Structure formats: structure tokens, C-alpha cells
């Protein structure tokens, strides 16, 4: 019998929008999969791609980077830089033939509790379909 697959998703959430949106999902008592473990950063632009790579190569089934919608960044333009870095990262992962679908960038505002829940639900379902990260079993990565 196979054990039930519970994905492990790392969620980097920017303090001002997405973390607040996640809090609002809580305040509104919405259902969000427990697979996502939130990590609060001040801005999505703090999310060093090496952090995402680290999570990914250590076997995270999914990594979500979430920040303010373009134009809404608390620090004016951080999320634009974040998007470029994420794009490069995604290309690298894709280029190496790894599952880049396990990486997701989403914009969630502080009023979008429902959207936060939807994003995580959707991502969680997708990861469930993909199954556990094959990286988990690769000791030499």
C-alpha cells in the first residue's frame, strides 16, 4: 500500500501583500491546504533564487513565490525584479529538464484572501497530480 501523498510546498510570501492576504484567508476562515508552509519575507525581491533552488533541490514538492501585484509593491518596484529573477530561475530549471511546474510565481494582494486560498488550492492540486518530487530520493543532488 502506498502512503497518502502530502505535498510539501514552501511559500515565500511578501510581508505587505501576500502574507497579509494569507492572514485574511485565515481571518475569513477559508480552507487552505496545510501543505504550504509560509515563510515571510519583507518583499518578493528578497527571494534570492538560490533560496528557491535550495528548497527545490532539497526536495520541496513545490515552491511558491508570492508578492504584491505589479505596480503595488510596497517598495515601488521590487516585484518587477523578483519576476525577472524568477523567470531566469524557471528557465534554468526547465532547461535542465527538471519540473519547472513545481515553481510558481503569483501575485496576491492584501485583500485577496480568497485568491490566496485559490492559488494554494490550485497549486496543491497540481503538485498532487505531479506526485512527490523525484528529487527527494536523489541523495547526490
Amino acid at each position, binding site marked *: 500500500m502506498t502512503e497518502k501523498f502530502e505535498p510539501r510546498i514552501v511559500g515565500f510570501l511578501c510581508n505587505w501583500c501576500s502574507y497579509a492576504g494569507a492572514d485574511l484567508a485565515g481571518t475569513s476562515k477559508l480552507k487552505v491546504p496545510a501543505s504550504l508552509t509560509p515563510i515571510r519575507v519583507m518583499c518578493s525581491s528578497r527571494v534570492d533564487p538560490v533560496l528557491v533552488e535550495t528548497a527545490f533541490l532539497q526536495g520541496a514538492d513545490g515552491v511558491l513565490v508570492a508578492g504584491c501585484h505589479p505596480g503595488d509593491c510596497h517598495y515601488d518596484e521590487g516585484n518587477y525584479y523578483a519576476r525577472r529573477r524568477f523567470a531566469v530561475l524557471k528557465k534554468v530549471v526547465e532547461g535542465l529538464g527538471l519540473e519547472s511546474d513545481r515553481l510558481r510565481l503569483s501575485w496576491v494582494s492584501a*485583500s485577496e484572501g480568497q485568491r490566496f486560498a485559490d492559488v494554494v488550492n490550485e497549486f496543491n492540486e497540481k503538485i498532487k497530480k505531479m506526485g512527490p518530487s523525484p528529487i527527494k530520493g536523489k541523495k547526490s543532488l
Partner: protein
Amino acid sequence: MKEKEQKKDVLVIGAGIAGIEASLLLSKADRKVHLVEKTSYTGGATIKFEEVFSNMECSTCMVAPRQQELLQDNNINLITLGNVEDVKGSVGDFTVKIHKKARYVDMVNCIGCNACFEPCPVSLKNEFEEGLSERKAIYVPCAGALPNVPMIDTDNCLRFKGKKCTACQEACMFEAIDYNQKDEKIEIKVGAIVVASGYSLIDTKPLSKFSYGKIDNVYTSMEFERLYASNGPTEGNIVLRDGKNPKSVAIIHCVGREEKGYCSSVCCMYSLKFNHYLKSKIPDIKISEFYTDLCIPGKSHQKFYEKMKETKVDMIRFNEIEVAKQGKDTVVKYSTKGKKNTLPVDMVILAPAIEPKNDASELAKTLGISKDDYGFFKEENPYVSSVISSKPGIFIVGCAQGAKNIQDSVSQANAAVGKVLSLS
């Protein structure tokens, strides 16, 4: 003669965006601020908007950090459900009496878990949501409201109507609900007063040609804001009262402009913003904007207009306009360039004029400041400063002084702080 002591504390009336900004800035200067807000929450009208023009920034993301800051600021004494009843004295030494209505929920004990809502047997229209959804007799206006502490609406609570209900109290694990709370009379001494009491929209019902209240799918701009809000009654889905998505919309500018005799300065821009709202949710929706003169002053606004025009919105300049039923259809009958036309639409959004709050007159009387011909608080002289009222030491900011956008409201709030700080 002994010089009278100048009080340093400041009273700010209204915790909308202008009041919040004024309070935070005053606190930064180590001033003690008493911020009196009529409702149970902070953020005023701004927090009702999902996005603000012209950069379409998320309003909550913009304001919530400031609201948080406000609540955690030890220099700021926020008095919600408060009403300024009496003001005596003069600049440097005002004595202010505030009537603070009981919330019946303890601000310290309540942790904002919302467990008390569900068991409440009373259900009624939520005013914050423009009546588009229901609330209980114990409620917060919307999820994420700050302070996140409910209040009991004693007009509708069964207990306050003499019934024995204690449903909410039983549900609360924190002994936060206190039916014995009493209204309070608070007396404070301040040196200056900043009035940031906000605005209302003109009641569109009496403007019968727009059929508001008669035809179901005619909405006011504020109703539409809530309809689009992701924390609103439909979680941002644009659905009509009959549950359908509109396929065509008419947005009518300048509703009540003639009656009021002035241009409200923000309606063109927010109507264009609505265009963006609608297209983002229903991409193939047909939108007609009925306007008289496009008033889009300022360096970034025309660019926004041009971007909106690219979405193929139909901009129609009207002379006469009327909303009516034609058979089953809702139609906009209008004349343009001397020709008469009829346009059937699924939804009509009205952009009503901004007007003073209904209690502005009373507040003006309490404060002893004058009003202009339109009922807004009157600036003593715009070339000395538009934030100086007719009474020294009292400053008027935001839409309480006249219709304006957020940027100009915040500028005035900052200006009033400048005035207060240079008083002494």
C-alpha cells in the same frame, strides 16, 4: 499677564485616509493625537475600493499597513464609535467633549476570532457592503476590518430589544462581550483640531430619471466598488442582482452634477477605472461611458484614459440622459449632438456627485466653523491656505473641504500637520 499654556495634543476627526495620515504624521512629531471616528473601523471610504486610479494599486495593500501602524501607535488614542459633541475654547486650548458609543465588545479581550457572528440569530443588510450582503447584529463590516473587533448593533440586537438572547456571549471564549458596557463621555483638552470627516455620495433615488431603486440593475459607483472587491459580497465577481454576469454596461458620469452645481473631480477617473474592472473580469463585455466633459487633470491621468480607450470602450458625450425600462430591457435613452438614441444594457453604473456628509452641518456648528454654499467646510482663504477654516486652530482636510482625490486629500492632511506643528 501670565501667558496661557498652549496645549500640544491634537484632535483629529475622522479615521479615513486623510485622518489616518494626519494622525500618523503628528505622532511622528511626538504629538498625542485623539482620533475620533464615527464608525467602528478605520480606513474610511478608501478601504471600500479594490483598486485606486491611476496606477490601479490595490487599496487594501496601500492602506492596511497604515491602519496597522495607527493601531500600534502609542501616541494615537483611537476613539471609534465616537462623536464630537461639544467644542469650547480657542486655538491652543480647546476643550472637547466626545460621546463614545458602547461597542459591547471589549477591545482588549477580543482577539478577532469572529466566533460570535455565526450564532447571532439576526440577519440584516450590511451597510458597508451597500446592502449587497447580509451581516449579523454583532459584526465587523468586512473581513480584514481594522480594528478587527466586532460591535453590537443595538438597534437590531434581540437582547437590546428586550429578548433574552445571549448567543454571542456564549460563543465568545474570551469574555469579550459585555452587554453592560455603557456609552462614555470623554473630555479632552487639545491645542488644535484637524477635521477629516469625509464625504457622502448624493442620494440617487430622488434623481428619478436614473431609475435607481426602480430598476434592479442600476447600481451606484460605491455599490459597484463593493461588487468588484475581492473581500466584498461576491468576492469580486461581477454578478447582477439576478445572478447573471452583465454582457453590456453603461457608466453614467456627472449624476447629480447639475443639482449640486459643481464637478466632483474624481468621477471621470473612477469611471474609467470601472472600465478596467469590468474588462478584467468579463473580457468581452461591452462598455459605454456617458459623459459630458472629460475632467482628467494631472500628469498621469490622461495616459490612463488612453489606455482605457484601447479597450474599445464607447465614449459617448451626452446632452440629455435617462434610464428606463423598455419591455424587459433596461435602456439608456440619450441625446448626443442633437440626435436621440436608445441603448439597451444589462447594467447601469451611476457616478453620483460627492457631497458633504449629512452631519457636516451639525459638526460645523459644534466646531464653530463656517460652511460654503455647498455645505463643505469653508476655507478661510485658498490663497492663504485651503486647510485653514474660519476658526483659528481648526483645520479642514480631505473631501470634507471639497471633492478631491486621495493624493490631494493626503496632501491636505500633511499640510494641516504643518499648520498644527507651526502653531507653537
